[in-house]
């Protein structure tokens, strides 16, 4: 297993820039999720690490070795494709053995390692079956088996759960994470599904338009989003933005939104008069009759353990996650209480979070 280090990686396809100046480190044994919408450059980044695309500029290190221009077969990595890419003319056993054959491993050892891998993935009973008749989950396991069997420096996975149905995805998410806990393989996992990323990854890199918006643990990314894009992309429903225009001084502890004074974590920067947004997660909003921040109930979605209540604030809807047993009438005026030490402040022009006591260590791409 090895560390993956990416330095100032860029990839251009003609005039289109797919990945712009990305740098990050995946530590030995770490599980990184590259998360973003389609076309954000996450798959391109993964393919460059794999050696399936050459970067326009920048460097890639695997275990300290510069592999930027090495061929895929010289990198000692394993790749799990979205559609698995199981060789249809070979059975399960041959598929898993295929990378070992390339390395010239002795027949008896191939047999032993294939069987050991199959046992680990609980597919030892289908080793002699044709891959074309397999169900989605088994195909997935065979693809993983082919990756694991060679004990590579790292695993690269390109939306491997993308084609599975929802029920099966949950199961595979758990299996993948358990597998990672057992073999501690450095893994880069591409997905557009924030739940998958949150559930499995040690670190998440949120990408958009070829830029890494934020690199951090799932907790950091969720509770301290570095940009408005990340705040909006992560969470369901996403973070609410209360927009206002103000100038702020370093050390300020409150902002004025629509004439209402709201306490915020201490601001660490002087800000000229500009458009700002107060970011608040739905679960950090509660209803309080005495709160001066008021709006009219627009509607609610019942989610069993809780409900999402949308409140019209004049400038747009704010969604609050509140206990399911509270009852609201549509049109009813309610007061909103914000959990002040969970608030984020963004500069709307740059989209970046304003440094505050909550954002002491500021991660961004």
């Amino acid at each position, binding site marked *: 297993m090895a560390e993956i280090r990416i330095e100032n990686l860029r990839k251009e396809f003609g005039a289109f820039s797919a990945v712009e100046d990305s740098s990050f480190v995946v530590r030995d044994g770490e599980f990184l999720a590259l998360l973003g919408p389609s076309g954000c450059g996450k798959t391109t980044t993964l393919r460059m690490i794999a050696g399936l695309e050459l970067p326009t500029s920048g460097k890639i290190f695997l275990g300290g070795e510069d592999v930027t221009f090495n061929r895929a077969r010289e990198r000692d990595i394993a790749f799990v494709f979205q559609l698995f890419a199981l060789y249809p003319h070979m059975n399960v056993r041959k598929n898993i053995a*295929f*990378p070992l054959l*390339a390395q010239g491993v002795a027949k008896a050892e191939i047999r032993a390692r294939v069987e050991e891998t199959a046992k680990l993935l609980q597919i030892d009973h289908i080793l002699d079956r044709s891959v074309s008749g397999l169900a989605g989950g088994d195909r997935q396991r065979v693809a993983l088996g*082919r990756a694991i069997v060679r004990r590579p420096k790292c695993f690269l996975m390109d939306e491997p759960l993308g084609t599975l149905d929802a029920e099966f995805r949950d199961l595979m998410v758990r299996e993948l994470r358990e597998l990672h806990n057992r073999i501690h393989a450095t893994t880069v996992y591409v997905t557009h599904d924030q739940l998958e990323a949150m559930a499995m990854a040690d670190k998440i890199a949120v990408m958009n338009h070829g830029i890494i918006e934020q690199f951090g643990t799932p907790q950091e990314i969720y509770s301290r989003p570095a940009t408005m894009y990340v705040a909006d992309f992560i969470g369901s429903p996403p973070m609410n933005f209360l927009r206002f225009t103000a100038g702020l001084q370093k050390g300020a502890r409150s902002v004025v939104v629509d004439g209402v004074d709201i306490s915020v974590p201490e601001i660490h920067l002087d800000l000229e008069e500009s458009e700002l947004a107060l970011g608040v997660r739905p679960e950090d909003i509660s209803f309080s009759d005495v709160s001066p921040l008021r709006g009219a109930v627009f509607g609610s979605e019942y989610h069993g353990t809780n409900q999402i209540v949308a409140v019209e604030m004049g400038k747009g809807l704010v969604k609050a996650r509140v206990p399911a047993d509270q009852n609201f009438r549509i049109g009813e005026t309610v007061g909103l209480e914000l959990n002040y030490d969970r608030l984020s402040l963004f500069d709307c022009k740059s989209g970046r979070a304003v440094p505050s006591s909550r954002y002491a260590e500021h991660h961004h791409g």
Partner: protein
Amino acid sequence: MSSVNAAHSVVEPSRTSKRIAATIVIAYAVITMIPLVWIVLTSFKSPPDSISYPPKIVFQPTLEGYCNLFTTRTRQTPEYITSLGAPTSTCDEITRSRNMVIAGPSNYWPRFQNSLVIAFGSTFLAVSLGTLAAYGFSRFKVPLAEDLLFFILSTRMMPPIAVAIPIYLMYRQLGLSDTALGMILLYTAVNVSLAVWLLKGFIDEIPREYEEAAMIDGYTRMQAFFKVVLPQATTGIAATAIFCLIFAWNEYAFAVLLTSGAAQTAPPFIPTIIGEGGQDWPAVAAGTTIFVVPILVFTILLRKQLLRGITFGAVRK
């Protein structure tokens, strides 16, 4: 399969329309078969039966046509023939009954062998080159790929006879006239355009993830091509091979112009049989019947691939 059909036709065809369709198909098949049946029947007729009018459907079958096809014969006096002793074979007997003796083998078998060598040789070359070229066009950014592909296809648009004279002159200069190598090269050149186009369609359908997976698994691109792409392209390769083989096997215009002896193929040879000792239609028919057999066998063996080759692109997996 039923779900696939359902996607194309909303209503199951009625029995009447099925019957009409079946009638048309059977009628067409019968009409198409008539020449073949006529040729096979004629090959087993005696020369007088073969030219009788109205044509005989019921007749005494004989191998005379086949004997005449494979032998050259000389006319002898009955006294000489009776002095020869017992006939050594069926053909010997038939020939003597016509007051002739077998002088030696005819050129049919060497010509047939030429056809085999040239048709299969050029098919192998065209399909090999075509597969590699199609893979290149399918997977790499080839400069001017569109123009090159059109250029390759355009060589097929020209009637072969239009270039026959220049090629004849060129071949005479190069010493390729009437050589098997010359014919193989020529048929390869004609077929490679078809091969590239057909195979590009097939290879485009093979996801490139397979090779990428193989390359990550530690193989070179060439190894990935042979171990992963080729096995999946076999259907396409078989279909393409049949099309190439049919062309090379049946080709007449170039063969009649560029071959005369050593490398002559069966198609220009068969009509010459007719001149040897009267109008020997049964021998011509026998030559044609034998000539049809290899293609017939191949087509039957590979009919599934052939059908897929015709409808490729329309069917997904």
